């Protein structure tokens, strides 16, 4: 396939072009209560071409390899036509061409397990949830995906690489009186099917939390000191800062470029943050991005100061910096855009007990149930617990937090000594082709204390 695609590129009259072709195989099993909602296999494939002429860019997606030559010619023609209207020409930062293959090896490959074995495993977890008190609805989803990708460019790159992932997501809805609350179970998010096995304790912990949550009162709205658990802190750094480290989201905002310039103090000196797709076997791990750039660790915050940002080749050229290998696409239907990989707050020195003891009236916030980030950010917690006079109290429900990038990172006053990376997580980000929902990421953090956070809830 690499040679066929190279032959297509060789006929284009462009400054630069690349083609990515995906052949994917997926499995999905969805259970809802006692019912099998869906057992399905997917076999999508398709390609994506990018062409640059005189600083103008055109891109196109297509379904079959046979279409590649025609679509590539049309895309090149569209880029030539667009150049007349391009007053701010795009440039691509230099990167060494790669001609290599990056196969995946994993101890327990999900492709070697039968549909029957996957179904049995999911049914086992679903049954545990159904037997918990006051559970009225379950939804358990098993997914795996194996993608073989080929990337070729007019600069000589020819990369064959794979993506392999398997995960289980469970949502358990309980009802007690008028209270309807949810528990989440998420395991996997790496190539290793073994991470899905023998995880009953994770599920039973979530069910115990649900049992307590069903008797919990809604959280009271206000501004409080909070302690975030590692999962919540991982979501926090992803939403509160991570998206603003993606250079495409600051490129055209001079105020943000100034405030997020290298060396600018943005947070407490205790804070160190990096993004690293080379960490093995995590949701955001990969050897090469979808522009053919090798993955690498990028320090984003060092001792509270901006130390770097995540780039595509386009934004790296615009900022005069080096590509970081963070330009990724969910699948062939999308152009690649800058995405976080494994984004991590480095561990500090405080213990959890020390953090709790410093809070007179606040909350311990646990887990993440989704979020959204800009200069202002928000995310939902799975549960929270009141802290009074330095002691953990009763559980509360429906905790959602929001804040502002520039004030909240400075409001971090303690960082724990207990860092961990969480498992499966997807991240969505808008692009001209729509929202790329299925780009896998991972985040990690220790416990952190924030002196002032806005909590939405009842009045």
């Amino acid at each position: 396939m690499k040679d066929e695609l190279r032959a297509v590129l060789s006929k284009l009259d462009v400054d630069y072009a690349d083609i990515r072709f995906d052949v994917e195989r997926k499995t999905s099993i969805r259970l809802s209560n006692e019912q099998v909602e869906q057992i399905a296999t997917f076999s999508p494939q398709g390609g994506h071409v990018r062409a640059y002429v005189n600083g103008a860019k055109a891109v196109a997606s297509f379904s079959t390899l046979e279409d590649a030559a025609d679509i590539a010619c049309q895309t090149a023609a569209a880029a030539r036509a667009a150049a007349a209207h391009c007053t701010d020409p795009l440039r691509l930062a230099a990167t060494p061409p790669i001609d290599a293959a990056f196969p995946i090896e994993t101890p327990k490959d999900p492709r070697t397990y039968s549909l029957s074995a996957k179904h049995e495993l999911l049914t086992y977890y679903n049954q545990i949830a159904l037997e918990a008190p006051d559970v009225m609805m379950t939804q358990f989803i098993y997914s795996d995906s194996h993608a073989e990708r080929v990337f070729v460019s007019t600069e000589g790159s020819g990369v064959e690489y794979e993506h392999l992932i398997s995960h289980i997501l469970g949502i358990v809805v309980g009802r007690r009186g008028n209270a309807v609350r949810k528990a989440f179970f998420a395991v996997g998010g790496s190539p290793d099917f073994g991470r899905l096995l023998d995880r009953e304790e994770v599920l039973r912990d979530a069910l115990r939390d649900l049992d307590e949550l069903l008797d919990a009162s809604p959280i009271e709205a206000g501004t409080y000191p909070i302690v975030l658990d590692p999962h919540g802190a991982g979501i926090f750094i992803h939403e509160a800062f991570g998206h603003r480290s993606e250079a495409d989201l600051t490129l055209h905002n001079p105020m943000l470029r100034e405030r997020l310039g290298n060396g600018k103090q943005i947070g407490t000196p205790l804070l160190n943050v990096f993004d690293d797709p080379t960490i093995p076997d995590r949701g955001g791990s990969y050897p090469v991005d979808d522009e053919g750039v090798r993955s690498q660790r990028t320090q984003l915050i060092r001792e509270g100061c901006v130390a770097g940002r995540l780039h595509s080749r386009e934004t790296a050229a615009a900022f005069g910096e080096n590509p970081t290998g963070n330009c990724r696409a969910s699948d062939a239907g999308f152009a690649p855009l800058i995405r976080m990989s494994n984004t991590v707050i480095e561990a500090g020195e405080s213990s959890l007990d020390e953090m709790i003891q410093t809070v007179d009236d606040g909350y311990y916030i646990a887990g993440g149930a989704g979020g959204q980030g800009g200069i202002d950010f928000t995310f939902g917690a799975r549960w929270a617990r009141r802290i009074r006079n330095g002691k953990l109290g009763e559980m509360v429900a429906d905790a959602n937090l929001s804040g502002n990038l520039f004030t909240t990172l400075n409001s971090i006053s303690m960082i724990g000594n207990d860092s961990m990376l969480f498992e499966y997580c997807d991240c969505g980000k808008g692009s001209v082709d729509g929202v790329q929902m299925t780009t896998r990421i991972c985040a990690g953090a220790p416990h952190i204390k924030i002196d002032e956070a806005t909590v939405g809830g009842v009045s």
Partner: protein
Amino acid sequence: MNAIIQHAGSVADQAELYTRTSRSTQIQFTNGSLSLVSHNDRTEAALRVLVKGKLGAAFGDPVRGETLVHDAVSAAAYGQDVPFAFSGAQSFESQGEEPQIQRKRSAQELVAFCAGINQRIRSICPDADANLSFGSAIGSKTVQTTAGTDATDAFSHESLIVEIPFQDRGTDIGAAARLIDHGDLAVSDVWLEDLLEMRTWGSKPSAPSTGRLPTLLTPYASNLLLIALAAGLNGLAIAQGASPLAGKIGESILSPKLTIREDPGLGQQVSPRRFDDEGVPVQARDIVSNGVLRSYLTDLGSSGMLEASSTGNAVRRTLFTETIQDVPGPAWLGAVIEPGPTGWKELLAGMEEGILVTRMLGLHSSNLLQGQYAVQATGFHVRNGKPIGYLERTMISGNVFEDFGALQAVSSELEPIAQEPLSVPGLVPYLLLESVQATVG
């Protein structure tokens, strides 16, 4: 009969083939300069089969029909009995209107159109650097079953989003507006002038006090109500008893000022539909009449559990995605919130102290099934009937059934909303709520 459905029918008891084709073009101008021309040309198919009452499914390119059939039948071996059959022969003549398909404009035409918009913006406001995204799409959805359904709805629409950063750039939002229509979109001077006026509202941040505030929601923000209702009206949540709306048909659940219809066939919808994603005819009907609950949203699966007929509300989508791989589930296909008598600018002028909410961040992390929401609000602080600055660090939170139970007014304007991530398709007005809990950090 399509060869795939014919083959599937020969090896399975029943089969349903859903095919979607789309050809779309996107043009993007950034800071007035053309930054991207994008084409997307896709055809995808989803096959569901019933073998001895058990359901299996497969997805992929319809060119590889043999693989689809083999995979779906193999999957059915692990399925369970389902309480429904695929839809039978249907007549769609009396359902809604025949969709009108516009010609898809070429990329060159779209580029020229956007360049013209840029020029008009510059002529009114020379310092405005506009970001434009123009999308044009045509395509079709087809459902065929071995029981005789053979239905195709074509669609075509164009959408324009214009964003102009506020002058002080103190935020990553700006004045933003969106137009969407079946095709051959026209941009009026009034629309552009309103957009540029909005830019003047954002010359500085302005924080309201924490507490309960009158809140005016734009049509996109009003979607909060429809998204929360979609969770509660979902036939599966009703059948499983998880919804607080279970058993409440005939009871008052919202303000008497609210009448909400499901009317997907209406010509003013962005993508009028005559049948749902399972080939069942859509039903125009009241869901909420003057605040009283009248109907749920069901698909074949949930209606089977409820021992009723499907209301024709099956959609292959989630809160974020609409893909061929999403399991069909009950959802709005085209909601209509009945308009009120007063224009939205008059509603705004009547607010002494309050907020105008244009967008919400983080809606998906709320407990929507129970009507709870807690989101970061984007929009403007309003005083004496005028926006005086953009919102910063403002969360709004509460319960949909309580806050929309105390609705003050519905605007006379309806805006079309497309099926997109975190939005529900329909025709939606501005909604003025008596008060919402705002927490300002």
